[in-house]
């Protein structure tokens, strides 16, 4: 497996108002691997994740400093640099949230939503890509007959895989997952875990996880975060 670095975090500080959340975080995240950010609650794991697609910019009173370098087409780019177009960045760095958040529309339209945002409307292309994204998210066989049903009628695990499909349709090089199985039962979690292992071939995955067992099962690399600092660099 190619373990060249995909993301390099250098001296990252994050303040939320007066509270310091991340304190001089330095880390390297290998490409085509699953990196798990672990640690106790409230230590900045999710914050670190949202720095990687700069969704943290949406938070009022947030201040970020340091560098986050990402390798796109063999060129390193500092995504915290001013002038980086956020919509471009977020198309390269997809994100899946803790609780499944399908939009109130059909399954098909949920997955096609990101294409709509980029202005791609050609029907055959859209159909193809929706099918492919659903296949990659292990969901196609379960929903192929009801693509035009409301996405909210799916089960929790299916909704979460739908959200993964929605994030995959733009073929991001990096996929961020914020405790993707914490709202699911063990069976649904298992499916998601095997899905993550399969995605690693074409994607760099960074996930926050609370479950030690899960980390042991799927993570190639672990970043333990405590009090806003990386404790040690361990590779699995």
């Amino acid at each position: 497996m190619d373990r060249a670095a995909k993301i390099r975090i250098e001296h990252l500080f994050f303040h939320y108002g007066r509270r310091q959340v991340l304190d001089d975080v330095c880390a390297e995240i290998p490409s085509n691997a699953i990196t798990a950010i672990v640690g106790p609650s409230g230590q900045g794991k999710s914050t670190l994740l949202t720095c990687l697609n700069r969704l943290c910019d949406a938070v009022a009173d947030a201040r970020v400093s340091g560098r986050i370098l990402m390798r796109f087409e063999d060129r390193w780019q500092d995504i915290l640099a001013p002038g980086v177009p956020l919509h471009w960045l977020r198309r390269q760095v997809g994100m899946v949230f803790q609780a499944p958040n399908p939009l109130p529309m059909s399954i098909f339209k949920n997955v096609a939503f990101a294409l709509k945002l980029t202005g791609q409307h050609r029907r055959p292309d859209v159909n193809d890509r929706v099918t492919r994204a659903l296949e990659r998210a292990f969901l196609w066989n379960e929903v192929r007959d009801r693509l035009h049903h409301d996405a909210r009628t799916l089960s929790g695990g299916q909704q979460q895989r739908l959200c993964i499909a929605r994030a995959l349709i733009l073929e991001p090089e990096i996929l961020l997952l914020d405790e993707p199985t914490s709202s699911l039962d063990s069976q649904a979690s298992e499916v998601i875990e095997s899905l993550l292992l399969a995605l690693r071939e074409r994607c760099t995955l960074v996930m926050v996880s609370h479950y030690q067992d899960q980390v042991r099962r799927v993570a190639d690399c672990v970043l333990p975060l405590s009090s806003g600092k990386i404790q040690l660099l361990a590779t699995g």
Partner: protein
Amino acid sequence: MKQPPLDAVVRLASWGSTLLLLSLVATVIGFLAFKGAGSFSLELVFGDTPPLEALLLRRPVFGGLLPAIVGTVSLVVLAISLAVPLGLAAGIYMAEYGRGRIQQALGLFFDILAGVPSIVVGLFGFSVAVFLHRHFGGRIYPCLLISALSLAFLVLPYLIRTTQNALEALPEAVRLTAPALGATRLQNIRFVLLPRALPGILSGVILAIGRCAEDTAVIMLTGVVASAGLPRSLFSAYEALPFYIYYISSQYRDPAELATGYAAALILLAICAMLFAAAALIRQRLGARSHQRL
């Protein structure tokens, strides 16, 4: 399991208050129906004119309520269509773009505006009419358009605040869904936030419709008259139901005439109900559309 005493009290009080309100509404409507039902007839609406001729605008209606009904409906539709785009835009600004001191100051300003008594808004509209009359060669008088503008001004703060609150109440998870997929701020507002906030916004519009339909103080000063026939243009005086009710109740000559006032009140309630139903229908349609088309 036995309920704690406080729970039982709160429950009883909520039930009691609901029942009290319901019975009050029923009493008001029942009273109006009891007093006004007797004078309901085609003649009440169309006067001496044959209904078909009146509806086809072949002959004017005198002594009937048709001009007042048409006047009220056109006033409400006009005022709402002037106020909604403005209120929506300002509400979106307040919720999504405004930050810090400016947003706070504007919020305070809109709250003050919401507290301005309608008679003051009416006086303002009247002054505008006088000003325009002086500066445009005496051709502009208090009229339908000035009334509609004043009413729009009256309901604007409600629309702004309900739009803002509906948008701000959306959970963070909804708010971040589209940006995480690379949506720009405008795309997020258009495709996700507004459709999700629509029910809240529509309830603001329904409140505004009610306010426009019932207000008498503003229109009294800005163009309504006791007898004008059907409104001919935006720049003509017009009749309206609330003013008719006020006029009849203060100047009736016999009990039969007073009864027409009650009947007019019933008609006003029915018009409001229809406008509310239309707004609810639009809400449903838009909701269904955002679900299907996106």
